[in-house]
C-alpha cells in the first residue's frame, strides 16, 4: 500500500508509523473526566469502511498527518494535513 505523505508524496507504507483512529476526541489537556479519557483511549469505532486515522512519516520527514482510508478495501480516500 502507498500512503500520500503531504510533504514527501506517495511512499511505501513501510516508511510510516500508525497513530490509530483520529476521529476520537482527545480531551483538552488538564480537562476531561476519567470516563471521558477511558472512552477516548480504550474504546474504538473500528469501522469496516471509511476510517480517519493518524500516520507519521517516521523514516522520512517525521510529520504526522491525517488520512481517510477504507478499511474494507485498503483504498486511500484522500489525505489532510
Amino acid at each position: 500500500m502507498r500512503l500520500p505523505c503531504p510533504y514527501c508524496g506517495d511512499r511505501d507504507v513501510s516508511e510510516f508509523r500508525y497513530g490509530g483512529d483520529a476521529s476520537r476526541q482527545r480531551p483538552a489537556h488538564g480537562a476531561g473526566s476519567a470516563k471521558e479519557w477511558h472512552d477516548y483511549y480504550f474504546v474504538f469505532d473500528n469501522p469496516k469502511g471509511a476510517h480517519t486515522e493518524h500516520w507519521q512519516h517516521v523514516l522520512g520527514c517525521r510529520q504526522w498527518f491525517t488520512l481517510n482510508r477504507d478499511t474494507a478495501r485498503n483504498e486511500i480516500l484522500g489525505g489532510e494535513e
Partner: protein
Amino acid sequence: MLEARSALTTARPLAGEGLAINEAGDFLLTQLAWFDKSDEKTLKDLLGALPARVGQTAAAEAGTLLRTGPQQLWLLQEGRTAALPLLPSSTLVTPLSSSRSRIAVAGPKARDVLARCAAIDFHASAFKPGSFAMTGIHHTPALIHCIGEDSFHVFAMRTFGLAVWEWLTDAATGL
C-alpha cells in the same frame, strides 16, 4: 584541539567497475526551524534564499539549504570551518554535524545500487540533481541527496553509519 573521528573509520571504500562508494565526511550540518510564515520570510530574506517545498534544495551564500519539513530546513556547509550566518532571533538552531555519516555513491551503477536499498524511484527522469528524498535504508532513516547525473550523497544516522555502509557495499557486490 580534540581530534574528530568518523563513524566510518573502519569502513573500506569500494572502487568497482562503474561504481565508487566513499565517505564524504567533511561537512557541517545545522537544522534551522521556525514557527510561522513571518519567521520563514525573515529567515529567507537573511539567507537570500529558502526552498519553497519539502524535498527541494536552494543555493545560498552560507551553503546549501535542504527543506526537510514544513517549518524546518538543513543548512549544509562543506568543510569543517565555515561559521553560521547571521540568523533572525526567531530561528531555532540545532547543530547536527555529528549526527549523520555522509556516504558518496557515484558512477553509472549508483542508481541500481540505491534501488536495492530504498523504495524510491531513482530513474534519471524522476530523481534529478538538486533534489533529495528522506526515506528508509535498511529500516533506518536516511536522506539521499542527488548532487550530479549519477552521483549521490547518502546521509545515514551516525549510529547506523557503518551498518548502512555495509548494506550499500553488500548491494553493490550483486551488480
